[in-house]
């Protein structure tokens, strides 16, 4: 693959005899880097550290607890597939389903609208989990939702998380960021400018093919080498400076920033979304106000997903990794999710 080889040469040259530490923010990047073998190939020059960009992994226990309770009260749960096997304080959704709860897996949030329309006497709850990539689709579903479809907001916004991660001491020992391709398609390359400048952090937005990621990392390595703390865009086919204006307008109409609890990072102000006033009737709280998520208190388990998500612990450094915690018997979200760092380390290990 000539384009990939050329990029690897550039990375080697830029890194020199250093080993640069790069955080790949996005869970899809974590998996793509492992699956394509690029992580292993670049290991002599780049230490690639996974970040908190896995929407399932950062969904905290409180959220799942509310969902299982809602299911037990007869709501049919409609969810993306990843959420099904995440272990929560009252078991996973798959376990709740085995116990008789109704859980439907959908590919698109609009499928939830269709489901609810087909069964007007059943109340449905859509698990609104995802970053800015997924939020506009869910927002569209909210605008079309019939009266028997509710949403439990578990959205996360990427910028507040990056600000929190790199704005608090001790700052993770990271030289540069590989930014998420699809979140950036929505929010635009310009969204990161201020952060890059005041955090003194070189950043490049990358796509997901092996050559595309290699080229993005080459661009990033060269920026790090010349201390260029600006944002590069190596995914121009999909990401523009301003982002997807239509999607952003939809987010503005349907959602508004709200405080959110992240597994591993704790509570971060305005790092999530809640439904705007006009759509409040579609929130679960409108029909089950007593089901408030408990404060972000960790379960007492040995799971160290939180530290993994903050880039402070390599999955292999967790004592449960590969022993008590495997994809077949996951102890935490990072091992379950198709975007999880621990799952990637396990599946694509050398």
């Amino acid at each position, binding site marked *: 693959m000539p384009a990939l080889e050329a990029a690897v040469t550039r990375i080697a040259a830029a890194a020199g005899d250093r080993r640069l530490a790069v955080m790949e923010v996005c869970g899809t990047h974590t998996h793509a880097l492992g699956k*394509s*073998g690029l992580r292993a190939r670049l290991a002599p020059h780049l230490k690639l550290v996974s970040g908190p960009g896995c929407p399932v992994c950062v969904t905290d226990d409180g959220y799942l607890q509310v969902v299982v309770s809602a299911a037990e009260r007869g709501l049919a749960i409609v969810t993306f597939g990843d959420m*099904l*096997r995440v272990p929560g304080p009252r078991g996973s959704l798959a376990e709740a389903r085995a116990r008789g709860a109704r859980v439907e897996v959908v590919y698109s949030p609009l499928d939830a609208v269709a489901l609810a329309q087909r069964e007007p006497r059943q109340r449905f709850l859509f698990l609104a989990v995802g970053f800015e990539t997924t939020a506009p689709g869910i927002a569209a579903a909210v605008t079309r939702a019939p009266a028997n479809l509710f949403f439990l907001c578990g959205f996360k916004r990427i910028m507040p998380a990056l600000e929190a991660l790199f704005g608090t001491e001790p700052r993770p020992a990271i030289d540069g960021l590989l930014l998420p391709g*699809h979140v950036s398609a929505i929010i635009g390359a310009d969204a990161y400018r201020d952060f890059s400048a005041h955090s003194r952090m070189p950043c490049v937005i990358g796509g997901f093919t092996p050559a595309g990621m290699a080229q993005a990392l080459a661009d990033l390595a060269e920026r790090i080498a010349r201390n260029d703390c600006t944002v590069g865009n190596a995914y121009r086919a999909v990401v523009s400076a301003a982002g997807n204006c239509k999607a952003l307008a939809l987010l503005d109409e349907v959602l508004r920033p709200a405080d959110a609890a992240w597994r591993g990072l704790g509570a971060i102000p305005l790092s999530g979304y809640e439904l705007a006033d006009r759509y409040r009737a579609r929130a679960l709280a409108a029909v089950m106000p007593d089901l408030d998520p408990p404060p972000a208190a960790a379960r007492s388990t040995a799971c160290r997903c939180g530290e993994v998500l903050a880039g402070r612990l390599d999955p292999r450094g967790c004592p449960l990794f590969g022993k008590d915690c495997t994809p077949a018997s996951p102890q935490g979200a990072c091992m379950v999710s198709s975007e999880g760092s621990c799952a990637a380390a396990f599946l694509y290990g050398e």
Partner: protein
Amino acid sequence: MTELVTLNHGAGGEETGKLIAFVRECLGTAAPLDDAFVFTPTGKSALTTDGFVVTPRFFPGGDIGKLAVCGTANDLACLGARLRHLALALIIEEGLPFAELGRALRSLGETARACGAAVVTGDCKVVGRGQADGLYLVTTGYGEVECSVRRPLSAGDAIIITGSAGDHGMAILTRRAGLRLDSDIASDCAVLWPLVELAVRAGAVKFARDATRGGVAAVLNEMAREQACAIVVDDGLLPVRANVRAACAMLGFDPWHIANEGKMIMAVAAADADQVLAALRGHELGREAAVIGQVRAGESGRVTLATPAGSERLLLPVSGEQLPRIC
């Protein structure tokens, strides 16, 4: 006949007689489908059993009836046996339309006849609404062993796949996800005995297994474990149709882990790989046959994949249900 199968049809008596007559007619068999089928085996024989619960029951390239024959025949083919007799149990959910039942059974009958086999005995049960998902088929297949396809593997043995990977699984998963694609993905559901026969005549086949649930990765890991060897395969060598690759990318799946219903993985002595490949490619089911890797010296049970980036990583079996990703 009434439109829908009801509990009466399973209760014994006249209604059940009508159901059984309907089943026989759709299967296209003159055989009485008695309580048991009496026969004298001609030599070394093989027995297998299988259950079929696929939804949707009808999909491009096949249906539950066709699948029931192919799946059973292929389990036998993996051990060098040709399917001859099928025992068939039907578990029907009350409310299943007779038209649907008939369509599945006619397909089953046709597929059996096409590979020289027949349903010789059977059973029908009807369960209440909600106690089964429409229609379940359970088969027992009896076959005659005609060749040997199980021998110890050695370093250098070629790993061959008989065609493109992921067709069946993605045909089903795209339907379930409601994805409408410009080119509909069709299941590759097929009886693979002809390919096994051709391969064995062309060279030393040391292992054969169809890559069903869990896909190629599952079979490779089973092979490596059972034969206590190491295997390396190359990501760039797995034949995958463009529409399957695209659907996998959209849903977040990996072709190595997707089910097939008409593909064999074979381990073949290195010296015979070219002839076996030529023989497979000469058959319409094997046109896209390809070498995807080899057995090598190394840690027993270990399957590694040479990646597009020029490194090697583990190719582990997937665990749990395949679920479409969020983003």
